[in-house]
């Protein structure tokens, strides 16, 4: 129920937008993102961005994994 892709906002036109990943561009809707900005990342499910991706939190999530990898070595 949750298949979603992280896309970078590259174009905004009202609620319509274009997101990009690995050079691929995809149209999407930003109805649920407050004051979206070009360059931000959003999680897109079934054509709609359902949430912003927080880069700070992403760093923490990655750090948690790296800490585990280090502990296991």
């Amino acid at each position: 129920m949750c298949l979603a892709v992280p896309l970078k906002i590259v174009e905004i036109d009202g609620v319509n937008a274009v997101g990009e990943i690995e050079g691929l561009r995809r149209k999407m809707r930003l109805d649920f993102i407050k004051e979206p900005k070009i360059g931000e990342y959003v999680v897109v499910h079934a054509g709609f961005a359902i949430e912003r991706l927080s880069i700070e939190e992403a760093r923490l999530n990655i750090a948690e994994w790296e800490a585990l990898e280090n502990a296991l070595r």
Partner: protein
Amino acid sequence: MDEIITLDYGSGGKKTASLIDKLIVPAFCNPALSALGDGAVLAGSARLVFSTDSFVVNPLFFPGGDIGKLSVCGTVNDIAMCGGDPKYLSLALIIEEGVPMNVLSLVIASIKAAAEAAGVVIVTGDTKVVERGKADGIYINTSGVGFLKYPGLAPEMIQDGDAVLISGTIGDHGAAVMLARNGISDGEITSDCAPLNTLVDALFESGAAVRILRDPTRGGVATTLNEFIEGAGRGIELEETALPIRADVQAACDILGFDPLYCANEGKLIAIVSGETAQAALSALRKHPLGGNAAVIGRVSGRYPGRVGMNTAFGGGRVLQKLAGAQLPRIC
């Protein structure tokens, strides 16, 4: 079997196999057909390899190729996978009325270029036109003959300890066509459509002990590997971390909900070779322009008996089944 044909029967997976087993082979039963290789090795004073393929791709033109190029490479490759040296092709066109003449010209030009690149000659053919709505633009059938150059390739030759090689990145063609169909633009994914006969020559020149070759077209790498082991009682063990998959192809598959291991490849081959000659085979592939990203992706082993299994990046295991029906885009 169902009483009507559905799209799943064309996907190259289990339903296609059941159609072949239950309807087609019994009707025409003969040893050459029953072997169900990519082409048929025929007896005669010179051993011929004969193959046929039909092409119904939509859209007709996609990044990296078009239906014309595909129709030549598809049959050339089927002959090459059987150990044949492809020589002559027939070309049958079924064209929907209303197709612009310049579209047809472009397709013909593409066929000509592909045939020259592959070193084959179109020696006979046929053209029909059908009413609007009765064909998807253009349908093409090519049949080809070649002379057997590398005899003895067969699934029965596969042994424990053999290495599984692929000549390059996985899923490019399938991804390129799906993107073109869904209006996802830009990016650099192109179909890998290419004739593989010279790559096969390079492989054999290396002295590799090749058990079998196949190009993983419809149904992808996973389905092709399943075909190899069917009935052979062997197992194949792949290493996920060894699979060459482009990041943008993976992203395209993620967006659409597909799996690259089930996407078609039109310019790659899978080779099963003896463990001892795997290195030589790999080097030979890598030196060839079409094999730059060749990799050893697994081995024939008893780890997943009778299955195609994959050791995942996290030390887990996953079974790869044959494609059941067509891949469907998912949200879930």
